[in-house]
């Protein structure tokens, strides 16, 4: 992974970085931490959180998952407030909106609660560290590379995104557009970005509409697990199968059928278990004083080994992994 200039801003005022880290401090026992996903019934985030809760068992912490049933920032705020009242030691959040959750998170930090963002970042000044599943730039650029490879380097394509406001989606799309400026992609054209709102049915319908509106469409990138499944399902049952390339970010269980029937050749993702595991350890390390979130500190993350804290308090899990017919059966999530 390269540098991640987008997600960092200027680094700004970091509230909690006055303390100094003691890399050798032992992990405390009985740490109370809470995972706050975008919404509780997001299957992907459920996997992440489960792994995180399991990891807490390794260092004898008490972890739980709470969260709203709708992916809105306002419901997350209510939960943050409640977690503060419950005096948790750390809050791990996948933010629905980088700024809307900021105020309450800062209040939490003022009361000594550590905040770890994972999956979807908050504004940098509102959390101690951000566990990035893959550097955003990597995701954006590698998706274009993958698509170029599958489309043979030329033709029209479209992006099927989640909600129009999703921070990570928009960042990835921006990096895709930058990557496209390179001369080797001169014959590829991004004709349209549509939003399926992470709603299976809507994504399905959007795919359908795209194919009617753009007769020459040769490819679709859906950098969201809901979107890619819906797009693949539509294509697999229509006459466009084999003509239109679908790729993006998806989970192997969802995509297995489409990889096997040839609708989708390759797609990417990272391991959600590792993401949860890493976040959980980061929270514990923060609470125990092993790290403070400053650039250059090293997080010791159990079985995942050591990860450096990059600029802006970011910890990167690793580059996205590409799934295809040859390896998909080795995964079950």
């Amino acid at each position: 992974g390269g540098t991640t200039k987008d997600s960092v801003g200027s680094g700004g005022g970091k509230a909690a970085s006055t303390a100094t880290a003691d890399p050798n401090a032992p992990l405390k026992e009985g740490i109370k931490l809470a995972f706050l996903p975008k919404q509780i019934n997001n299957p992907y985030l459920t996997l992440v959180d489960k792994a995180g809760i399991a990891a807490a068992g390794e260092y004898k912490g008490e972890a739980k998952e709470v969260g709203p049933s709708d992916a809105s920032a306002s419901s997350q705020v209510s939960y943050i407030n409640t977690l503060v009242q419950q005096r948790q030691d750390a809050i791990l959040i996948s933010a629905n909106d980088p700024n809307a959750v900021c105020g309450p998170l800062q209040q939490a930090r003022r009361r000594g609660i550590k905040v770890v963002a994972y999956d979807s970042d908050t504004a940098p000044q509102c959390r101690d560290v951000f566990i990035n599943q893959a550097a955003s730039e990597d995701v954006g650029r590698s998706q274009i590379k993958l698509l170029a490879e599958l489309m043979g380097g030329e033709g029209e394509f479209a992006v099927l995104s989640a909600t129009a406001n999703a921070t990570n989606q928009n960042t990835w799309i921006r990096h895709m557009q930058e990557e496209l400026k390179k001369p080797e992609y001169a014959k590829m054209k991004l004709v349209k970005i549509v939003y399926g709102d992470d709603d299976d049915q809507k994504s399905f319908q959007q795919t359908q509409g795209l194919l009617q509106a753009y007769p020459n469409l040769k490819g679709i990138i859906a950098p969201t697990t809901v979107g890619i499944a819906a797009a693949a399902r539509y294509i697999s049952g229509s006459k466009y199968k084999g003509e239109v390339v679908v790729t993006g970010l998806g989970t192997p269980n969802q995509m297995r059928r489409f990889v096997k029937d040839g609708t989708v050749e390759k797609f990417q993702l990272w391991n959600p278990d590792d993401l949860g595991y890493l976040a959980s350890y980061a929270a514990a390390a923060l609470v125990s004083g092993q790290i403070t979130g400053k650039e250059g500190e090293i997080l010791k993350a159990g079985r995942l080994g050591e990860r450096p804290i990059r600029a802006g308090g970011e910890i990167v899990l690793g580059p996205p992994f590409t799934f295809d017919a040859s390896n998909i059966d080795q995964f079950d999530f």
Partner: protein
Amino acid sequence: MTAVARQRPTRPTAKTGRGEGGLIDLVLRFRELGILGALIVLVAVTTAINPRFLSAQGVEDIFLNASILALLAVGQTLVVVTRNIDLSVGSVVGLVAFVVGDAVSGTQHGVLFAVALGVAIGAACGLVNGLLVSLCGVPALVVTLGTLYVIQGLNHYIAHGEQISAAEVPDAILKLGNGDLAGVPYLPLISVAVMLAVGCYLRSYPSGREFYAIGSSPEAARLAGVPIRRRVLTAYLASGALAGLAGTLWLARFGTVVADPARGWELDVVAAVVVGGVAIVGGVGTVYGAALGALLITTIGSVLVVLKINPFWQEAVVGLLLLLAISADRLVALRLARVLRKRNVRHG
């Protein structure tokens, strides 16, 4: 006699004229024609701009998309006609899609099992609504908003972050959602069959007319000895059962189901019914209109994508077209009423 003897001037009834009058009567009697007209205009304009819209695949897609909404609209019509409302249908669809999906995942259960299970769950939800509304006489809107929340919660509780994935759903069931009979997909076939059956029942059977009687005037219905409770209960049962069927079809069509997939659909269904000319105050409207309303709303959604309307504008345009549809319908009605009144002068 004390009273003034009165003779009734022979009134020009709405049936007198043919020609112009005949057309007016036709439009007045079959309000569904207006929606059909709007639909035809919409499709014609879109096709003129993008001929692929009317390709076999395009038409098939629209009908497939509209089927489930139409099914729900048919059920909702039964309820709305009795001056009630069922806001819980969206959550019932979600619950059924998930629970049935869960039950058939990894098994070799057939279509019959899935449909029976789905309809049973839906009917059970409808029964609860119906009993509360008809037996206890509590306001339908409050009850069904309440059951919406309850069923939604149940659905999330059962799902608990899991999802049903298409890979595990038996092929037989997926075929129901994506297969076809002589080129016509099953889904619209099912919806049309249900619509015709319910439409015929409501129009041509005495007990069917009683649904309209109840909605038109509950007080009069009571005095006329109409079994109000039984009919209202039936309406909710039917709406629930159809929502259950729709839930099963959802599973069959999409394969992948997360918790509460049809969240927010209650408003779409009500919109379809209202656009279809079913009076929200009861007593008026047909299932054909409601189904057409569902088709219109779905078509608007597809048209916008096909016409490459900026996605940011899409939702706004959907709303605008909805308003246009109901306003136009209303303006035509007002105009016709004026024409009819003035026509009295010429005849009288």
